[in-house]
């Protein structure tokens, strides 16, 4: 750990945790958000906020590193499982500096973007407010000395400070099942997001918010003049026409003229086939999207392959995965995983919310629409139905039941005699019972 240099305004200490995301069996810092891992994202966020990022393996080390700050510098402590956008980090630092307290904790008033990812996160709640384990220390003197229960002491002592944020909320109607009241889901479009990634659902939900975090950021902050020019060149006030123009394409993309892309970011070297529809999505470099695929509000990882006629909604595919599903909604596909056209991931529950396994127990996600997760390198190559919220472990291979697929065609088939499938072959109708 090097001493902090003059060009940094402060120091961001990332405290190691031993959270493991099942079924991937990997640390949340390796989880992906669009084209980056959470670890890389933290580095980017720190450098955009002019903070020096240092890692601490223990609370003692974190205290040491925070105490090393120069008197003019402030310290920020976050956990290594935190996803935080530069916008909210800057706002947190801004409001903390104005405050009289020495040690402050990031808190948020509950709104759509907080509620979207709230279930299963470890948060402290107080009425309408929630607080993350993200702290601000005015200077090195304000850091508590380390002891065994340092983090829980900090949780008690730090002053909660509300970080203001703006968001646009789109109400998305959900399917109505039976004779019940119609429900809507509040989908936030915002660049102010903090998520503590502790479960696979957080990776999925976070990537579902990438339209706000990446695309809105690109259009409003990174390339506003480009966006303005593009929006004018639509020569229309229709929002859909403007969205069609606001597509960022990387270099070396091969995009068929009949493909329809709107409000998306396309990485470099991406191949997009005829009649493909992509809306509000993030396509990472070198992905291949084959003919007639439809990708709505999804993230497709680097080098991933989306086969013909695939229909993806609000899903996330890790790099190098292959998806061929006729319809795949609200699901997470692991690195190098393969999902065949006929695998059915059920994504809705008639009554109640979808339960997922969390810390060894079935826990409610407060959502009635959620698919499943496929582990790294797993292959789902069969016509199977997977219950909502289930985890398929890494390297699992699911194939057809040998008695359900016709793998031996008998030589002595009588023409026009009705046959049925039976134990992997075909037998005359009625013979399957014996």
């Amino acid at each position, binding site marked *: 750990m090097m001493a902090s240099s003059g060009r940094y305004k402060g120091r961001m200490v990332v405290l190691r945790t031993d959270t493991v995301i099942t079924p991937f069996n990997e640390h949340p810092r390796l989880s992906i958000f669009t084209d980056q891992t959470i670890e890389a994202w933290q580095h980017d966020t720190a450098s955009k906020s002019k903070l020096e990022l240092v890692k601490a393996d223990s609370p003692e080390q974190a205290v040491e590193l925070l105490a090393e700050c120069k008197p003019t510098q402030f310290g920020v402590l976050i956990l290594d499982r935190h996803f935080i956008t530069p916008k909210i980090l800057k706002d947190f630092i801004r409001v903390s500096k104005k405050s009289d307290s020495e040690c402050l904790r990031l808190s948020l008033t509950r709104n759509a973007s907080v509620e979207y990812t709230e279930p299963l996160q470890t948060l402290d709640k107080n009425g309408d407010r929630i607080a993350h384990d993200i702290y601000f220390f005015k200077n090195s003197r304000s850091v508590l000395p380390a002891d065994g229960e340092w983090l829980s002491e900090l949780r008690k002592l730090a002053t909660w400070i509300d970080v203001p944020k703006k968001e646009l909320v789109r109400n998305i109607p959900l399917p109505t099942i039976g004779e019940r009241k119609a429900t809507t889901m509040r989908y936030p479009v915002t660049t102010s997001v903090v998520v503590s990634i502790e479960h696979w659902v957080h990776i999925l939900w976070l990537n579902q918010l990438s339209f706000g975090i990446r695309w809105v950021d690109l259009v409003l902050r990174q390339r506003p003049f480009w966006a303005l020019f593009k929006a004018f060149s639509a020569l229309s006030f229709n929002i859909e026409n403007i969205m069609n123009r606001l597509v960022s394409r990387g270099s070396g993309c091969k995009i068929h003229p009949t493909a329809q892309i709107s409000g998306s970011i396309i990485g470099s070297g991406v191949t997009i086939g005829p009649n493909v529809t992509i809306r509000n999505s993030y396509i990472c470099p070198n992905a291949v999207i084959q003919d007639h695929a439809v990708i709505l509000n999804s993230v497709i990882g680097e080098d991933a*392959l989306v086969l013909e006629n695939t229909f993806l909604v609000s899903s996330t595919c890790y790099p190098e995965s292959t998806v061929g599903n006729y319809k795949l909604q609200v699901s997470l596909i692991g690195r190098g995983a393969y999902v065949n056209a006929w695998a059915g991931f059920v994504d809705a529950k008639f009554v109640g919310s979808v339960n997922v396994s969390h810390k060894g127990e079935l826990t409610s996600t407060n959502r009635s629409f959620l698919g499943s997760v496929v582990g790294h390198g797993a292959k789902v190559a069969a016509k199977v139905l997977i219950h909502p919220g289930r985890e398929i472990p890494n390297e699992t291979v699911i194939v057809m039941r040998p008695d359900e697929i016709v793998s031996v065609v008998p030589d002595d088939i009588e023409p026009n005699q009705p046959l049925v499938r039976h134990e992997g072959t075909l037998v005359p109708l009625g013979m399957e019972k014996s």
Partner: protein
Amino acid sequence: MRIIRSAQTIAPFGDLVCDLPFLDVSFEQFRRREVEQARVNSNDLCFASWAFASAPILEAFRRQTKPGNPSRLSLPAGHVSRSFQPLSSIKSQDEQLLFDIFIYADPNASLEELRQTCTPVCVETESKTNIRQLPRIGSGPSEVEYPIDGRLAVHLHHWVHLLWAIPCLVPRLLKNARNRVGRNVTIHPTAYLENAVIGDNTQIGAGCFISNSYIGPGSQLFDFTKVRHSVLGHGTHTLADASFSHVVSFGGATLSNLLLRDVILGRNCFVTTGVIFQDQSIDEPVHVLDAGKEVNTERMALGGCAGHGCVLGARAIIAPGRALPNRTTIVMRRAEGVHKISPEHTKMPVCWNEGTLTPAAEMLSEGGVDEFEDDRRLYSRDSNPQRYA
């Protein structure tokens, strides 16, 4: 033009290779047409009954051969020419592939004599190709390269060769046009055609998308049919939202499949929506039966084959590389259909079981996760049972 006849038929169709449909005509007529277009004196050429080469290759063969010198067609063993080689009698020798097509050969010699006496002439042609990405799983290749300009030489011994070769010959009918549309064709304004050949009296519905494909005369494609790199013979009917990729159908078929990929169908087949030809292998390349033996096709993506007049209903699922004989009829297992529905079934979540409906919770063995608990509670509270009756 001399054809060395043989009694070889293609399983499971049982037809002589010369009589099989090849785009708009039979294989025999198609080959003759290619020879006529090649500006080669047809009397100089000699083909084995299964051998085929398109006109540009025959013309280059004639140009690169000394007149009067008995020669045999050979192509450099590249990705494209090699991709048609599995299961066929194409011989590899010194990085070349030798075909049973001869020029200036002895008109009375047998095939074996010709193979031995004629000197191979390696024909260099530049071919435009396309790469098809396949899932990167298993041990086989994750992409296939195929020609898109109709330059192709192939031996037809097995149904896989028909499946691989016929769609690649659509550019021979296009002849550099963007599309070729026959007479009396109705095309909905929202349909999109790209490198498509449409036969006479065809109807194409709204939102159809046809690329690199041949649609035979008298076909009816219902709305939103997607046809890609496929050949659908004369009189094919498709139902709404059917989708075909790398498919060959000999004609007269009624097809409603949501996704049919790498499949070859004989004449007058009927395939319902639920039928699945599994078309991707997850561990090793697909094997097919050839003369009773399992042979490696060196392809990771290969569906199946259905003979003439097959009727495939129910939820028939066919393993990759399997061929159904002519006039196979597959129906639903009686136990899988729900034949009996009693009014009691309306108060709880039920599922199919042995031809009827059983409460879903009863189907679980001891220790299973009862995910239907919430549902049962809700439905048991229902004070108005008549509502669902």
